[in-house]
């Protein structure tokens, strides 16, 4: 084992927090404090109602100055919450902030042993003893400052990503907006109207799309995916794959020396293209060619060649003529950009609701999803805004809306969570058909109507007054009449307490949402955690909803969890603000948990070099010996090398072997045996 580096006499101060009754409710704080006084090296011990308050912090600073403390222990909540607070207090007392150690007696003690006060108190004493043992061996550390690249990246070009990119760019930061599909706009551009204001979705979104396109601070990278990520806050090197689009922009044409060339969005290529494919933007309900745009308002207005479908007949190249915008030999390109911070806004997909066999989606023609409904009711959609039954093109007069379709579903097939906007858009759908189809009756099958937002409950009442029928009951199954293709919706009306069998012309499933297909890959590239259902994990659910545990990576919109447009935009603005802070400060401090080589012990075997996932370690010649050397800028402080070195020659700052062993010994050998 490594030896202790310093040999000063440790003088430790221990401060035990009551946290109101959060801790004191199940732990005898005074007893813990008295116990701390009996521990070796403890010079002073005290307790206080709220250690994180200003008077609490002052106690620490004063004790450091008065007692010439060499280390501070606070027994309170989790270091993940208040370690920074108490480090500052330690610093205020004139001590190096890394001379501070925290004993978690709240999250991992008083809150989880609420009915066992004796055992909880004993555990708290152990925790303090363990912390004192470590604090006695802590050393001065200096955080490393690194400059922050004055550029940001936003991944995902839906409304959240667009808002984040606009805010960052408008704050003077060069912003790369990366979008996997050929246009920005995301899910919102597929919607017809928005609740509860009934604004036309495209009408309010298109100006924003244009703003993004025109903004000089934004480099818009559509049809592009994140391929690899290296580095850390301030210095992310992101490798992007610009997928072969087959079409060049005017700027790219100029770079190739084609004067006045490049795609103008005229669409001449589409007219001659012989290949027809379903348009994913219209959910396959309308055709597109192998050279295509999703819809007329795309941004950028540049066509894309679908190389999976293209037969390379060259007719489009001919039709394009002198503009020479089409290049059928184009290949994917990789590019690397350096950014200081990143905002993830990867959005959502619709849960494959055909997995809920009982509702017959994809088996029955006249069972559609809400997103398909949006396209069918949209004036620019495949039917010009006429809602029709897919089976026969007739106008439906009885429409059932099945809410919580796959949401709030504990059968193991669907999703346990609430998808959060289905109630409201289904109310809006009911309104839209009442408005468009005389004599139509919407039947809304619901579990609870969750109209939680501003003006939402009022909207709910309005739809009730407009004549929508509300049936409180989950739909058990849907059966198709094979002759009429009408559907029988079987449910229990839980308010009347009787089963119902309702014949309708069309069923709209308000399908659950799930993280978009790329979310998992993207989050792993950026080292962001996710919750059990795949939504990206925020740094703190209440106090840091935009941040992640990876410094410099922030979250915007539905990728963090289901939310509607206003909440998405609000979070995007929050994420943009958070992402701009390190950039505007110009430098960030990295926690100095670097590995260091104790050269006198290092045998130069090099086994550690391959352990490091960041390539931070290397063997060098020094004074005629081969020893390992750490590149601090690359080291992230995981300690994997330190856990492996057969000679114990690696000193992991702040998690050094003697410090950890002291903790183990303090627990097992110290205290009342």
């Amino acid at each position: 084992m490594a030896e202790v580096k310093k040999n000063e006499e440790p003088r430790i101060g221990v401060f035990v927090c009551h946290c109101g009754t959060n801790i004191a409710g199940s732990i005898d704080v005074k007893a813990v404090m008295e116990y701390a006084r009996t521990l070796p090296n403890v010079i002073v011990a005290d307790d206080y109602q709220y250690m994180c308050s200003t008077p609490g912090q002052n106690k620490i600073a004063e004790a450091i100055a008065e007692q010439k403390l060499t280390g501070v222990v606070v027994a309170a909540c989790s270091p993940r919450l208040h370690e920074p607070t108490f480090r500052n207090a330690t610093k205020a007392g004139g001590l190096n902030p890394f001379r501070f150690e925290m004993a978690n007696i709240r999250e991992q003690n008083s809150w989880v042993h609420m009915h066992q006060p004796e055992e909880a108190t004993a555990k708290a004493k152990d925790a303090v003893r363990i912390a004192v043992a470590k604090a006695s061996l802590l050393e001065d550390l200096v955080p490393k400052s690194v400059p922050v690249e004055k550029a940001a990246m936003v991944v995902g070009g839906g409304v959240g990503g667009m808002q984040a990119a606009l805010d960052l760019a408008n704050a003077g930061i060069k912003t790369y907006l990366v979008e996997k599909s050929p246009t920005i706009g995301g899910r919102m551009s597929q919607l017809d109207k928005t609740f509860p204001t009934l604004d036309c979705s495209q009408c309010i979104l298109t100006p924003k799309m244009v703003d993004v396109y025109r903004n000089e601070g934004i480099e818009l990278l559509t049809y592009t995916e994140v391929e690899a990520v290296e580095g850390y806050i301030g210095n992310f090197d992101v490798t992007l794959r610009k997928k072969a689009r087959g079409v060049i922009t005017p700027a790219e044409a100029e770079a190739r020396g084609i004067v006045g060339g490049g795609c103008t969005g005229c669409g001449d290529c589409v007219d001659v293209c012989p290949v027809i494919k379903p348009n994913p933007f219209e959910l396959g309900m309308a055709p597109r060619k192998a050279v295509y745009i999703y819809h007329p308002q795309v941004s950028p207005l540049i066509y894309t060649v679908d190389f999976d479908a293209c037969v390379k007949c060259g007719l489009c190249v001919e039709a394009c003529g002198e503009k020479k915008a089409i290049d059928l030999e184009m290949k994917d390109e990789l590019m690397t950009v350096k950014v200081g911070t990143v905002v993830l806004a990867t959005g959502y997909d619709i849960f494959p609701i055909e997995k809920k066999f009982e509702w017959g989606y994809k088996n029955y023609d006249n069972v559609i999803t809400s997103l398909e409904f949006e396209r069918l009711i949209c004036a620019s959609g495949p039917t010009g805004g006429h809602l029709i039954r897919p089976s026969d093109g007739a106008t439906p007069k009885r429409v059932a809306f099945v809410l919580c379709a796959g949401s709030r579903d504990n059968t193991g097939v669907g999703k346990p969570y609430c998808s959060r906007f289905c109630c409201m858009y289904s109310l809006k759908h009911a309104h839209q058909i009442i408005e468009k189809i005389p004599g139509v009756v919407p039947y809304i099958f619901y579990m609870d109507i969750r109209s939680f937002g501003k003006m939402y409950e009022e909207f709910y009442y309005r739809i009730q007054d407009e004549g929508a029928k509300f049936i409180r009951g989950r739909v058990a199954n849907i059966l198709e009449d094979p002759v009429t293709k009408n559907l029988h919706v079987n449910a229990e009306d839980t308010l009347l307490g009787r089963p119902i069998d309702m014949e309708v012309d069309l069923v709209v499933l308000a399908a659950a949402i799930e993280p978009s297909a790329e979310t998992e890959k993207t989050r792993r590239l950026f080292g962001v955690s996710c919750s059990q259902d795949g939504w990206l994990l925020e740094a703190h659910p209440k106090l840091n909803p935009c941040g992640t545990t990876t410094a410099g990576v922030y979250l915007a919109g539905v990728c963090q969890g289901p939310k509607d447009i206003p909440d998405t935009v609000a979070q995007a603005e929050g994420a943009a603000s958070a992402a701009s802070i390190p950039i505007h400060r110009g430098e960030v401090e990295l926690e100095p948990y670097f590995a260091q080589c104790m050269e006198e012990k290092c045998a130069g075997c090099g086994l550690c070099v391959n352990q490091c996932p960041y390539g931070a370690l290397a063997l060098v010649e020094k004074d005629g010996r081969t020893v390992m050397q750490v590149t601090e800028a690359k080291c992230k402080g995981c300690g994997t090398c330190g856990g492996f070195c057969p000679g114990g020659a690696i000193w992991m700052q702040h998690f050094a072997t003697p410090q950890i062993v002291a903790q183990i010994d303090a627990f097992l050998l110290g205290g009342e045996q």
Partner: protein
Amino acid sequence: MSKNKHQYAFFLGCIAPNRYPGIEAAAIRTSKNVGIDLLPLKGASCCPAPGAFGSIDLNVWYAMAARNVVLAEQMGMDIALVCNGCYKSIWEVNHKLKHNDELRDGVNEVLKEIDMEFKGSVDVWHLAELYYDPEIVGVKKIADSIKRPLTGARIAVHYGCHLMKPGKERHFGDTENPMWIEELVAALGAEPVQYRNKMQCCGAGGGVRGYDLAHALDITNEKMINMRDVGVDAVTEVCPFCQLQFDRGQIEIKEKFGAEYGIPVLHYNELLGLAQGMSPDELALDLHAIDVEPFLKKIL
């Protein structure tokens, strides 16, 4: 599972040999034509019926079903059968005993008295699923075995509850709107017809017929209405008990509701037999309560 994928111990059940012997004959002969040998499972008892036995004493149900499985284990062969009720009993007990050591020990305690032990060495299959499995028979091989396509026949398919449900424990995927038996019917040259509430019970299973005949017929009647509405020449199923309910049930329905449907009811193996060229006599179709003649006229 047995080493030979084309040899099975054939579990007859009760209703097929007693009421519709044509099913037994058809199963053995049609299977041979598609490369499956069905060997008699000698000494087999009642499966025993899942509704009747299972609702009174589960342990008896486990033990009797396990005994039938052990007979197959002694032959070193998987079991094949033609009845959903038998499938529910034998497949499910075999499955449960394989996955629940405690249950298995309890059953073996009982079997010890007759010097038997459940080992869990074989699997249980419905003949229909073997027909559908492309690695065993497959739809194409069925189609290739046909000598007399049932062209023009509109046929409703009834799956039956005990085959498909509970869906989570079975291995058939979509149990709400399955289509695989339709594929097998289409392979005979017939036209499978969709009707409302296809997955509804026949009315008989689970002890319903034994407990409350009027209620059972009510369900059957609804089924018959749904089939009649789409116009079918026959209904096919893979369960003699469902067949009994549809076939004899139509007579009872006529007495109770006065409604007459006259829809012939044929087990899939009987249909397959016809298509492979077996004569109505060989299939003992005259034992059916509802006259099969109009259907035969249409296809022969």
